[in-house]
């Protein structure tokens, strides 16, 4: 689509013209965020990329101010978080925005990923765009995990112990790696220090990968609900003001839900036991991660073998890297895939089931259900997806986006 960009803009302001002649940032903004031709048929699922970006910035801004007041020391960390909430002006707001923001950042990204899955946004020529997205997801998980350790509550400490211990499953060198990660022989002050340093670093790496994600997006432009390429100007609208305004509306609705949690139920998404200071001598009844990691935690525990569990957990995300090649269907959008469509919903249901299993101790019915759901997760990607693409008969694709939009209006 890059070819359909208009002529280079002329700037009336002399200073802007002078700068742009030497460093074309204004041309870039004009080209990529104003005239950028964007399919005219987006639905509201296409808001979530912009929403996730806003959440990332919000996390960075609140995080920097929190870091100015936080004490990354095992003896002080727990109290310092409460001191921030009690004594720093609007400290309670910063802390609850950051804490709840993590959940809502993940929620936005999960909807964004679902959008990609359902409308086949990962298919050629957007494979690298998708893979960069998976890198962002992995970095987010690492950042969120280390951030959760910082308040130094019981779940912080024991969560850190369980997750770092996973590396001990690696044959021969596992135990040495764990000691190296901890900076000692158990999770302690050195662990907290380095997790704080990394928790501050990783978000900026996420920003860099997001930038690459956006660059890759702007090469071929966005996918759309029909999954067919725009064929000319009648199929597209300029990004601004059409989608800046639509994203703005979607963002406001999202922020209303987010604000409701920040202000009226800030602790409802977390575990109460994390308000008990870390105690290496007392293990909590259940050690569970935050909700957004529960499905992967369930996969980890579903496998009776430790190393196998670790491999499956990381594999469940690594699998997403090769998704563009596992899907053999030539049709992108599930709108035209009458069978696969239902399997995408089934996958979402499967992940919800895994989430529930991850939240409960692995006993009774949760064990076979988690195993079945784990098996289905891998079945979906490794067997169903490649086979179904070959045998499914997709519905006929519309001749163009404009054609489909006009027909819909006529109905």
């Amino acid at each position, binding site marked *: 689509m890059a070819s359909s960009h208009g002529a280079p803009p002329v700037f009336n302001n002399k200073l802007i013209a002078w700068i742009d002649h030497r460093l074309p940032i204004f041309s870039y903004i004009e080209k990529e965020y104003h005239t950028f031709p964007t399919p005219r048929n987006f639905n509201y699922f296409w808001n979530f990329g912009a929403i996730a970006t806003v959440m990332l910035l919000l996390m960075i801004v609140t995080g920097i101010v929190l870091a100015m007041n936080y004490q990354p020391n095992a003896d002080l960390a727990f109290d310092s978080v409460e001191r921030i909430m009690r004594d720093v002006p609007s400290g309670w707001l910063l802390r609850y925005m950051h804490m709840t923001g993590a959940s809502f950042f993940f929620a936005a990204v999960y909807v964004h990923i679902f959008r990609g899955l359902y409308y086949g946004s990962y298919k050629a020529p957007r494979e690298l765009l998708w893979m960069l997205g998976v890198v962002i997801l992995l970095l987010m998980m690492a950042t969120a995990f280390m951030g959760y350790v910082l308040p130094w509550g019981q779940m912080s400490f024991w969560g850190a112990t369980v997750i770092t211990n996973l590396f001990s499953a690696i044959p021969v060198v596992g135990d040495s790696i764990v000691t190296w990660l901890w900076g000692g022989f158990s999770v302690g002050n050195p662990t907290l220090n380095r997790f704080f340093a990394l928790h501050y670093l990783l978000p900026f790496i996420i920003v860099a990968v997001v930038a690459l994600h956006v660059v890759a997006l702007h090469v071929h432009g966005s996918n759309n609900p029909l999954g067919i390429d725009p064929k000319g100007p009648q199929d597209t609208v300029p990004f601004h003001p059409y989608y800046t305004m639509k994203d703005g509306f979607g963002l406001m609705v999202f922020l*209303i839900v987010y604000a409701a949690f920040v202000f009226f139920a800030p602790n409802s998404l977390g575990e*109460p036991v994390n308000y008990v200071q870390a105690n290496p001598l007392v293990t909590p009844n259940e050690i569970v991660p935050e909700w957004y990691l529960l499905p992967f935690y369930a996969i980890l525990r579903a496998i009776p073998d430790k190393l196998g569990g670790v491999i499956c957990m990381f594999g469940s995300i690594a699998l997403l890297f090769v998704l563009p090649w596992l899907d053999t269907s030539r049709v992108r959008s599930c*709108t035209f895939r009458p069978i696969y469509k239902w399997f995408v919903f089934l996958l*979402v*249901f499967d992940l919800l089931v895994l989430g529930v299993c991850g939240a409960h101790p692995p006993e009774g019915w949760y064990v076979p259900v988690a195993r079945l759901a784990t098996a289905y997760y891998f079945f979906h990607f490794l067997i169903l997806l490649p086979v179904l693409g070959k045998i499914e008969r997709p519905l006929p694709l519309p001749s163009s986006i404009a054609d489909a939009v006009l027909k819909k209006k006529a109905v």
Partner: protein
Amino acid sequence: MSKPTPTKLSLTKLVLAGAAALAVFAAGTLATAAEDMPPLPKHEWGFKGPFGTYDRAAAQRGFQVYKEVCSACHSLNLLYYRNLQELGLTENQVKGIAAEVQVSDLSDDGSVIDRPARPSDPFKKPFPNELAAAAANGGKAPPDLSVIVKAREGGADYIYGILTGYVPFEKLTPQQIKEFSVTKDDHFNLHFPGHRIAMPPPLEDGKVNYIDGTKNTLQQEASDVVEFLAWASEPHLEDRNRTGVRVILFLLVMAGLMYGVKRAVWADKH
């Protein structure tokens, strides 16, 4: 040829997602209900909900309960005497409350002295350190109460349940005694996981005498001290609620405006 349009699909999707979520939550609820704990007593707390506020009079009585009963064993490390002004006590009252307590300090020549506490001092701990607290309480230090309402599943209802949930040994059924291996020296509490709790019943009818003439029943004392502890856990709750209502009203207006702008911008494309 009827083609499924994206609009119809997103509706299907919504219904499906809703059904899936319902099924999952139903499964979760069933599993929780299976645990054999009696339901927590339902108590109307004024600080619940988006417009919640603390009952200052109840919280002040609750502070009296904490001071006269709980503080013998439980610290309140995150609170300073100055914080009590937020409960409606005057500066002089707070000074008086602090001055009743002796805290250790260093004099100008560096020697250790005891002096009356000031509003800027943190609440005095009942024990000098965690080991001493554990040693005086059968091996386990009583928990700090600063964030106790946030730190327990069930929150205020749970703390209230514990304070009012003791059953004397004589009133236990033989089945309860057997199932939880309760002896005469144990304290049986309906709401404590495992039911045998180290803390002896801290409150009873007439345990404290309220200056404002409120009847000092067990339920009253418990509900007052929970009000106080809820405030101690979330001292900014009222500010948070007020700000939240304003922020959400603002966002609603913004969302309405954005929707109008979006409609206007898209008018020529629809």
